[in-house]
């Protein structure tokens, strides 16, 4: 189950990393536009985490959970792979870091994703003893810290998007 969900999440995000440019061209959108929209999304996820709530884009409703539990394969695909691991925020981050840059940077993004997936897998497999070791409160603290970082990353993406758009329209 852990392997399936992590592998699936990796596959989905990898498609967006590699095909990011093609997706941009297909819909006629620009990287700055994506960065602004993605930045707002990532900011919202972080903002909700920071307040100790579960983000609604990241967390499926209980109804969704029940429905996917009916299918044997279900939970590995949803909610685990999508949207918990490969949610809109993850895809937005992946695309804004890889699209419009060189092939080497794309490879670097893939490599970072691979490393994260390996770490996630390790955490999932060692889950039971890990949560006991950390305790619920420590996990909450980590979650909030990540929320802060996410909010900042989102803001940074918006800044990059706005400055990219300004440069684009100033030069044309």
């Amino acid at each position: 189950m852990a392997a399936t969900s992590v592998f699936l999440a990796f596959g989905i995000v990898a498609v967006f990393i590699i095909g990011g440019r093609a997706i941009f061209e297909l819909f006629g959108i620009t990287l700055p536009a994506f960065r602004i929209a993605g930045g707002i999304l990532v900011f919202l996820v972080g903002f909700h985490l920071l307040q100790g709530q579960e983000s609604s884009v990241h967390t499926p409703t209980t109804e969704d959970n029940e429905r996917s539990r009916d299918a044997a394969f279900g939970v590995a695909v949803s909610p685990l792979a999508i949207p918990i691991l490969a949610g809109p925020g993850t895809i937005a981050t992946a695309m804004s870091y890889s699209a419009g840059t060189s092939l080497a940077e794309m490879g670097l993004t893939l490599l970072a994703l691979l490393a994260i997936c390996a770490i996630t897998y390790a955490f999932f497999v060692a889950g039971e003893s890990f949560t006991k070791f950390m305790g619920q409160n420590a996990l909450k603290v980590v979650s909030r810290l990540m929320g802060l970082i996410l909010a900042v990353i989102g803001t940074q993406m918006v800044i990059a998007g706005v400055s990219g758009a300004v440069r684009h329209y100033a030069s044309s």
Partner: protein
Amino acid sequence: MDHWVVQFGSVFMAFFAIMNPVANTPVFLGVTRELDEAER
């Protein structure tokens, strides 16, 4: 060289923050509660 390290670091941190392996572990345990160890 430094540029690549910094780039990797920032992408890695961004992914780490958004995929959040630490805080998602309890979520994983929650949704797979009724499965046994091998299935997990």
